[in-house]
């Protein structure tokens, strides 16, 4: 029991539950299936990106370039689908490959220079996005093929409602679930995952233990790139239009969700459960404010306050742990 009380996931879960209960009492609309199905679908994109950032934070790095990666990946997919072949498998293959390539490039530069990842990924964010905007001319892609639209509108679950429209769960949520399972498996059930935690905790020790820092760095940034590519597909599927400036600028939102979920920017800490809860906490707070009719101007105030509270709590927790150990 005391073990559970020490886990940050416990507190985030508690916060989610508390907010949930308060919101359901104040606004019955909150606890309906249709609201939750929408909420899950609308946060699939952020949820997938957050899992990638989690893996990077665990390994002791940080990435802010993934929004550019997702944009480039979805745009190249859009061009291929509209101008060449409207094959639905290509819609996933191409962004995956583009994402892995751009992620791997980040990893190589970070490893070779030894400069903090935040600086390198700010540079590659500018590089990828600037070059992309220049080449694409900022043009939108509208006429995505029928097969892509059909995929996006598929529902995996439809529940009839008495005296109303049936409620359905979008297939997109399945991709988030898939990413959750795969990321959990990598971090908890493979040696690569254990090595990533070890490297994030103490890179020097990991090096002396004989781990290849390069391979691990390459893996974490490529995996982030891959998920960014898939998240790009999700975003395009949801809006049915590819807009060059839709994604870039949201990198810090994703980072915020992962941090709220208990991951540490010092590396070596963080879990899939915490990250998912972090995304959901931010999502229900925003959703709740909308349902309660609070002006959207307050959204950022609420989000910022949550982050600051988490910052203070983790700092106090660390101090207490330090005091106990000495």
């Amino acid at each position, binding site marked *: 029991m005391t073990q559970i009380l020490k886990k940050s996931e416990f507190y985030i879960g508690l916060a989610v539950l508390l907010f949930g209960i308060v919101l359901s009492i104040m606004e019955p609309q909150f606890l309906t299936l249709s609201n939750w199905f929408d909420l899950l679908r609308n946060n699939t994109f952020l949820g997938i990106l957050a899992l990638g950032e989690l893996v990077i934070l665990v390994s002791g790095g940080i990435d802010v370039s993934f929004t550019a990666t997702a944009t480039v990946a979805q745009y190249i997919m859009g061009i291929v689908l509209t101008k060449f072949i409207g094959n639905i498998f290509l819609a996933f293959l191409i962004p995956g490959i583009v994402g892995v390539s751009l992620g791997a490039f980040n990893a190589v530069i970070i490893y070779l220079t*030894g*400069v903090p990842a935040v600086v390198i990924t700010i540079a*590659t964010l*500018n*590089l990828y996005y600037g070059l992309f905007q220049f080449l694409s001319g900022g043009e939108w892609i509208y006429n995505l093929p029928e097969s892509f639209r059909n995929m996006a509108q598929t529902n995996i679950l439809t529940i009839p409602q008495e005296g109303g429209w049936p409620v359905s769960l979008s297939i997109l949520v399945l991709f988030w679930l898939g990413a959750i399972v795969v990321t959990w498996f990598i971090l908890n059930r493979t040696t690569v995952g254990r090595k990533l935690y070890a490297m994030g905790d103490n890179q020097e020790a990991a090096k002396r233990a004989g781990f290849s820092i390069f391979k691990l760095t390459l893996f974490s940034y490529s995996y982030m790139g891959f998920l960014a590519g898939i998240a790009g597909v999700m975003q395009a599927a949801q809006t049915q239009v590819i807009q060059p400036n839709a994604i870039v600028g949201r990198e810090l939102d994703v*980072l*915020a969700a992962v941090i709220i979920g208990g991951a540490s920017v010092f590396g070596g800490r963080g879990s899939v459960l915490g990250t998912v809860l972090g995304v959901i906490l931010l999502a229900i707070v925003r959703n709740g404010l909308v349902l309660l009719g609070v002006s959207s101007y307050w959204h950022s105030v609420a989000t910022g306050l949550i982050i600051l509270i988490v*910052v203070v709590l983790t700092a106090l927790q660390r101090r207490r742990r330090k005091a106990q150990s000495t």
Partner: protein
Amino acid sequence: MNTKQLISKRIENIDSNVVVLFAIFIAVFIIMAFLSGGNLLQISTLQAIGFQLPFLGLLAIAQMGPMLTGGIDLSIISISNLAGIVAAKVLVDMSGGPVILIAIVGALLTALAAGAINATAIAYMGSSPIITTLGSMIFLEGVTLVVTKGNIISGFPKAFLAIGNGAVFWIPIPLLIFLLVAVVFGVIIEKTPFGISTYMVGSNETATQYSGIDTKKVLFRTYMTSGFIAGISSLVMIARFNTAQSGTGFSYLLLTVLLCVLGGVSPNGGAGKVIGLVIAVFILQVVSSGFNLIGLSSFLAKSLWGVILIGAIFLNKYLTGEAYG
């Protein structure tokens, strides 16, 4: 000691990085002047550069202190926006009295109060700078939205607009403000005990603490200073465009980090000179103004900026045989 020795000693004292940067600036300036068919050399163009650069330049100086300590401040743009909106509110809503003075003081006090959030959490609670300032960035931006309800505030007194648009002997006032802040900040950070302890915290916080320096106080002052300079940038910004609104200038945020690194500030903290940063700001502005004159996409300039930074990091690594820090 003869003159020759003195000269060689003087040269040794100048940071090699600053020399390289200055050479890059000259090269970029000549190339852009040539490619733009001499348009870059016109007084009006140079003046425009002098009006455009100070806002970004001041924000970059605000970013420098935290980076010297090995930290980062993601909230400077939000602080600047909030301070600007407070000043704008005063200028538009108040009548009578020394309105301009109250607006300026109000903006600077707001910036200091916002900086105090970061400073307290980072210095006295030991929170990570990147997360703390991420939180305050989002929070303060939210406050600006709540205050303005997303509206633009505009229509300031003429005398106030001089801060952003006036000139003394063809030299833009905002440029003078930027250079003044750079000099004052440079003297404080490079010559005073507080400044030198800032560098020490950046190179080894634990060792600095054991040497008897109150590192918490140093960190506290660093983030307060950062907020204060962001406050100054807000005045230049709203006076230049005669408007204040939330959400302005966020594309500059990550650019300020790049400018610091290109200007020679070690990403790990502990090293870097203000003069290097100032030259880096000038390089950036000449490149983007040059691209504009030639008719090349500003996005291409943006990507070139990423390439220049990675190139500079590699160059530095292989010139010195080791990475930063």
